[in-house]
């Protein structure tokens, strides 16, 4: 019987060339590459626009006997020296809050309203003798600055109480204490806070990339199978090549076209990341923002590449089979719906897993072929995975691909030929039982 190659290769080559040369592909790739570049440069842009500038906070001291060094204590509370930063001798953080002593509260309120000040803090004393604070400014419940000001005020009030209780130099109480974490896995020891943030960002990016590839290019596969069927080109193809060859060729060709688009976008984003360091130094001074690409290592790249490809090939085969079951292109979306749901479930589960990468269910799902492409790279970046686990999961994924492809080929060979019949599950099942 005829083997998979070289016919699958011929089919893949045509599929790839037609896809890559199409105007829609070129335009879409260009737009997405620009978006990638833009996203990579966004942190620099935010800095230029002043999102990173210190918050200006007006302070009115209305209390008759304010604690000594009020502004100094408040500033210390708002701009704490980072414990982590001290521990690894990292970059000193620039001040996030700038305190402006205010003598005219009325004018200061106007300044807040006009945006010259970000907030106005009035420090008085209640009848019990404790310090009392009034804050005027942005009060949305999620405002980070409000929470910070409140915490610093609390600190100031405690310090004031301690002073009144006779404690000398109470500000020393708030000096950060030494706190060292020894992780269970000795390899994870190199991770500090900044690296954790970067790892989290990286894992997020990987999950999103995988999801988008599966959805977008899976739909390409389903759409082009349905098109060949509805235009009846399929009748000629199926005479010259076997259904298995057509299915494999279609998946490989579309996968290659998708990867081409992906590499173009990632290339543009990478250029942006490389440029953002020098750019931000040139424009705003100081170091660049923490980049998600900091955590990219060779093993991460290899594992992500493998699982990305594997996941794509796995899902694409299902999409091809589903695409072969419709007679009209308009029905494609309806038919691929259930599969899209599987992809979306994996996607959201992966997002939940980002915050609990060590939990048992994440462990389990990282071995399930349809979810491993999300979960295995995620675990590798955020948690600890033994090489054996990666290999085992990869083997399961390969086994899944083999099984799904042979099932899909049956549905496909039945589906592409059922012209004019309602693409019911029963018709396809009946036809799929017979070996072709």
């Amino acid at each position: 019987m005829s083997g998979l190659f070289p016919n699958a290769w011929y089919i893949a080559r045509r599929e790839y060339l037609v896809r890559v040369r199409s105007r829609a592909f070129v335009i879409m790739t260009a737009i997405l590459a620009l978006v990638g570049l833009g996203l990579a440069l966004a942190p620099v842009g935010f800095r230029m626009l002043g999102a990173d500038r210190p918050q200006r906070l007006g302070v009115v001291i209305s209390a008759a006997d304010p604690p000594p060094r009020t502004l100094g204590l408040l500033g210390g509370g708002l701009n704490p020296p980072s414990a982590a930063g001290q521990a690894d001798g990292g970059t000193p953080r620039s001040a996030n809050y700038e305190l402006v002593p205010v003598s005219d509260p009325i004018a200061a309120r106007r300044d807040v309203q006009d945006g010259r000040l970000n907030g106005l803090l009035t420090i008085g004393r209640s009848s019990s003798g404790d310090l009392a604070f009034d804050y005027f400014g942005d009060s949305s419940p999620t405002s980070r600055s409000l929470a910070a000001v409140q915490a610093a005020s609390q600190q100031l009030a405690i310090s004031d109480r301690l002073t009144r209780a006779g404690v000398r130099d109470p500000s020393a109480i708030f000096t950060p204490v030494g706190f060292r974490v020894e992780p269970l896995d000795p390899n994870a020891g190199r991770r500090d806070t900044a690296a954790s943030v970067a790892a989290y960002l990286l894992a997020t990016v990987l999950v999103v990339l995988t999801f988008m590839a599966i959805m977008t290019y899976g739909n390409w596969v389903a759409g082009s199978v349905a098109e060949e069927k509805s235009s009846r080109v399929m009748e000629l193809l199926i005479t010259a090549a076997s259904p298995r060859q057509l299915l494999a060729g279609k998946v490989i060709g579309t996968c290659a076209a998708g990867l081409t688009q992906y590499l173009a976008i990632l290339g543009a984003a990478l250029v942006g990341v490389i440029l953002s360091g020098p750019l931000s130094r040139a424009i705003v001074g100081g170091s660049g923002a923490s980049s998600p690409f900091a955590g990219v290592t060779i093993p991460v790249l290899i594992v992500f590449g493998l699982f990305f490809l594997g996941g794509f090939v796995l899902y694409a085969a299902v999409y091809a089979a589903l695409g072969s079951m419709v007679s009209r292109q308009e029905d494609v979306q309806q038919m691929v719906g259930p599969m899209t749901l599987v992809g979306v479930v994996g996607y959201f589960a992966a997002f939940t897993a980002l915050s609990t990468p060590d939990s048992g269910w994440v462990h389990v799902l990282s071995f399930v072929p349809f979810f491993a492409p999300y979960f295995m790279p995620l675990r590798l970046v955020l948690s600890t995975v033994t090489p054996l686990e990666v290999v085992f999961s990869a083997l399961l994924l390969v086994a899944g691909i083999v099984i799904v492809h042979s099932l899909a080929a049956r549905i496909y060979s039945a589906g592409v030929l059922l012209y004019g019949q309602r693409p019911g599950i029963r018709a396809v099942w009946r036809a799929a039982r017979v070996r072709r």
Partner: protein
Amino acid sequence: MTAPHQDSHPDAGAPSPGQAEAALPPDSRAASPPEPAIRTERLTKRYGRVPALNALTLDVQQGEIFGFLGPNGAGKSTTIRTLLGFLHPTDGRASVLGLDVATQSVEIRRRTGYLPGGIALYDSLTGMGALDYLAELQGRPPVRRAELADRLQLSATVLRRRVRDYSRGMRQKIGVIQALQHDPELAILDEPTEGLDPLMQQAFYAILLDLRREGRTVFFSSHILSEVERVCDRVAIIRAGQLMALQHIDELLARRKRKVALRWRGGTPDLSAIPGLADVTVHRDQVRATLQGAMAPFIRAIASPSLEDLTIEPASLEEAFLEFYADGDDNPAEVAG
């Protein structure tokens, strides 16, 4: 010129095709009577309750040109698609080149040249690109392509243009070429002359005759009888999924009726002695009748100086069909089961 037909009883004691294949090495089969290129046995296809094909039984011998005739919607394409494994028979069985259509269709398609009815091609490819692509997939060199393109007058310039810009006839020519370019042992062609102008139809039939000379088998469908009679060895006529006739073309031609009209100067001679002339109506000097069978005795009988006008209408397929419809009921072999 071809093996005797119409013997629908399988040779007594002969093993069924499946057993023969298992028991005999391929070359020992050559000694036994050659396997038919296509064989269907009570082939039935129903779409839900709607019958498209009803107990169709026919053989196509190797090396013959077989015409498959019927009006639109008679079940021609359904039969062809079943033969290529695109449809599953509801009942009965069929084999092509000794291979079962239900289980070995991939192999059948690999060894057969196929022209689908209403051919569709990738619009973005050039004519040559489409032929190259299909040749790659067919896995055999397109040895006949140049000759076919030449005979169908498809120039290199045209082949360099995109299929998108092709006329119906050009697409059809590409379809014919791709079905035959790799010189398959069997060609199954669904309405091959559709969209070809009369000159190209002639060229196409000349190609078929050459194929037969080289021992290839051709099975093609058509709804135009006059086309088929020029090239076919045998024809099957189906209507509403039923086989109405399976005959040598000579027999079919002999059965065919033509309308004739004659006008005489003076009295009308006696026409009753002419064989095959029936339904005679006389209206003054005008005679209308139908003529079945040989033309020569009729011409000889009417040849006289007083014959003023003679019209012989070409026999249309519809009339041939009407004939068979009328016969259908008293043909016990074809009564619906």
